[in-house]
């Protein structure tokens, strides 16, 4: 997790998050059942993007070096870093994308619904942290790329099948 | 003309069998699950049934037992088919009442030979 600024596009990988400010742009690709979480402070121009895989760190059976693997630890770690960078939590807004069920079959299988569970967990944590969700493109059955422009708070979601939209 | 009923949940496999069997000179009817298959068998009385082993909800073994326990369909010979071919599956198929077994991808010439042998035996 690193901090940069000024116009560059910074990629955020799976189970990771980055925070930045001003004209930096954060991007994460291949959101299938994973959820991309954007947090931004429009007043102080600070933003963060996390790419989480699982809902809850309590299900983890092993030590991990990536807090951003989980919705709960990931979002909280990102909030902390944004505050360190000068963000004010009561200004924070969130936008989320991902949590799809990428597979189809003759019979639906509840074991494949981790995407939905991830979205629920993310919404729960954001509610606990009192951060409103102002944009969302979640669920369904397609993969997404998310691009976040900190300066304006604009978030673009791209998919292979359905083109580009803003949330 | 010999009438063949194909029971398989894969649309692709249904189409493929329909094409191959019609070209081999058979009349073909198709069902995409066990329920419809058994109903169609009762109604149309095919000469032979090709039955998929692995289907969602009701599998081929249960469907076969069903066909064999119904007076209208018990004498129709059943060939079980599956992509997972091993002796255990072949044995299970025979135990549930199938007279034959063929693995996917289906070799149409082999299937023709099996059908002819089974129906030839029927007629004596």
């Amino acid at each position, binding site marked *: 997790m690193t901090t940069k600024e000024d116009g560059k596009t910074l990629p955020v*990988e*799976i*189970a*990771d998050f980055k925070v930045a400010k001003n004209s930096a742009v954060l991007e994460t*690709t*291949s*959101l*299938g*059942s*994973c959820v991309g979480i954007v947090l931004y402070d429009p007043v102080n121009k600070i933003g963060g993007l996390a790419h989480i*895989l*699982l809902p809850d760190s309590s*299900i*983890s*059976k*092993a030590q*991990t*070096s*990536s807090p951003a*693997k989980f919705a709960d630890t990931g979002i909280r770690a990102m909030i902390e870093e944004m505050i360190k960078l000068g963000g004010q939590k009561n200004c924070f807004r969130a936008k989320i994308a991902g949590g*799809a069920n*990428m*597979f*189809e*079959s*003759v*019979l639906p*299988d509840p074991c*494949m619904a*981790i995407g939905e569970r991830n979205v629920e967990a993310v919404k729960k944590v954001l509610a606990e942290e009192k951060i409103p969700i102002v944009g969302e493109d979640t669920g369904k059955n*397609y*993969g*997404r790329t998310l691009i976040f422009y900190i300066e304006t708070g604009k978030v673009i979601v791209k998919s*292979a*099948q359905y083109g580009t939209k803003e949330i | 003309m010999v009438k063949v009923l194909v029971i398989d949940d*894969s*649309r*692709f*496999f249904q*189409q*493929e069998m329909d*094409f*191959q069997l019609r070209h081999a000179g058979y009349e073909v009817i198709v069902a995409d699950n066990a329920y419809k298959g058994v109903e169609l068998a009762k109604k149309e009385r095919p000469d032979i049934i090709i039955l998929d082993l*692995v289907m*969602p909800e009701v599998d081929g073994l249960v469907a076969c037992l069903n066909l064999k326990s119904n007076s209208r369909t018990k004498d129709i010979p059943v060939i079980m088919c*599956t*992509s*997972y*071919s*091993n002796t*255990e599956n072949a044995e299970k198929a025979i135990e549930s009442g199938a007279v034959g077994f063929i693995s*996917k*991808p289906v070799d149409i010439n082999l299937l023709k030979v099996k059908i002819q042998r089974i129906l030839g035996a029927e007629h004596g």
Partner: protein
Amino acid sequence: MTEINNEAFSLIELDTLREIINMGTAYSATSLSKLIDKTILVNVPRVDIAPIKKVPELLGGSNLSIVGLYFKFYGNIDGKIFIFFEKETAELLVKYLTANMTFSNVSEQKEIEKSALMELGNILANSYLNAIAEMMDIKILLSIPYYSSDMLGAVIDFMLIEIAKFTDYALLLNTVIESPEIKIAGNFIIFPERESFEKIFKNVGIE
């Protein structure tokens, strides 16, 4: 005892795994070859241990358009198997598989093409597991196929999520097929459950 987390597979264990996946893929390649009447070759099997975030890169890049078929398997050993083709390969395979068919409309064509790929996946996954079951003289059953057509990264993240529950590293048992006659590219990846590794090594005679 071998722990995936500790990445402590011995050389002989890695060799065993390579042999098993090679055999599985060879059986699948034979089935595919019969289906489309072309020569199919199996590349040298790879056993890689990589951080989860690097997996998409290792498999060709997260933005690669693929068609993937995912299966669970159960029996004496449990796990998952994932077969994927680059989009162009999937389109080519579908052309071969549906060569005899006519469609009344585009929607029917798409449905049957998807069904053809699911059926193909069924046959290939069954062949792969058949090989292992025979090699080890055990029973393995396969689930129905799960189909996805999208960017590689988005399709595989479900599998990475499963792995991430236990560890930050993925054990990739990956084989690639290709053909000297036509331009196709396919991958076979098997994910045995952790307990199944012990069974595999015991069965083959190594502790």
